[in-house]
């Protein structure tokens, strides 16, 4: 068991070493073999060759922060729904599933689980709605 695991991880380790080593070798080759000719033009920001107008540190409204937070909540919800949908058949089966056929009765664990999850998020949505965080006025 231990020997198998060691050899399994050894190949992964070799892969990581090869990947990191290759990147380091290329970076070193570029550093030591390539010419370095710094200039003012190279330090200048790239704007398709035009003069730079304004500062790159532009301000934007704090409302975007709210939107980002609310978005994150529902984004994570979507991310959870996909694995749940894949596992739904097994979660709805009281017995075991073999070749897509359930050996036991119906289980409401899968649907109940996701309904609780959605309910928590709906409470959160109701809260942000009441706090007028989803409006844009």
């Amino acid at each position, binding site marked *: 068991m231990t020997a198998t695991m060691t050899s399994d991880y050894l190949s992964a380790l070799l892969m990581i070493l090869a990947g990191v080593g290759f990147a380091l070798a290329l970076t070193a080759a570029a550093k030591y*073999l*390539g*010419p370095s*000719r710094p*200039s003012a*033009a*190279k330090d*200048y920001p*790239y704007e*398709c*060759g*035009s003069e730079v107008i304004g500062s790159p540190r532009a301000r934007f409204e704090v409302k975007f922060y709210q939107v980002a937070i609310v978005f994150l909540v529902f984004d994570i919800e979507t991310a959870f729904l996909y694995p749940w949908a894949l596992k739904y058949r097994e979660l709805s089966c009281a017995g075991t599933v073999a070749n897509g056929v359930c050996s036991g009765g119906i289980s409401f664990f899968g649907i109940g689980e996701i309904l609780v999850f959605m309910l928590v998020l709906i409470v959160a949505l109701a809260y942000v709605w009441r706090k007028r965080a989803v409006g844009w006025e």
Partner: protein
Amino acid sequence: MGFEFHTTSLRSAVNWARKWSLFQYPFVTACCGMEFMSVAASKYDIARFGAEFPRFSPRQADLLFIVGTITERQGPALRRIYDQMCEPKWVVAFGVCASTGGFYQNYATMPGADQVVPVDVYIPGCPPRPEQVLDALMLLQDRIQKGEGHSQITIDAERGYDVPIAAIRPKQLGPGAAAKKEG
């Protein structure tokens, strides 16, 4: 022995690596862009020459493709992009407009992009056929291998290396530049 050995000088090996890994910056201003897309796409497949990767930042590119007409107003922008590119770098004038101004005879059009940047290879044609572009790319690869690119010559001269005499041409920055330098 099952091994074969290949001996080369470091410069030759570096130039070999350079000529097969050109990252292009397509400075597309006009209709030649269609032919450029055709060369880049699968039918003519510029990837066979190691130049398949267009970068839209000069920091990551070493081959400037000037694809189309350059106007006097665009000149400074083109020059800045050339200056911002990594070194060594190469320039290809794609089509007659980039090479000579083409059929435009007016005050707005620059008579060739070599008025502002040193061009390594000129491609005639209005627009050039994809085969011509690939031919130009192979010509450029030859020049890179021999160390005859303008940027390579500049760097070699700075480092005090021998510069191939055949590569030194008076016309490096347009027709007027050589005369100005001498005078």
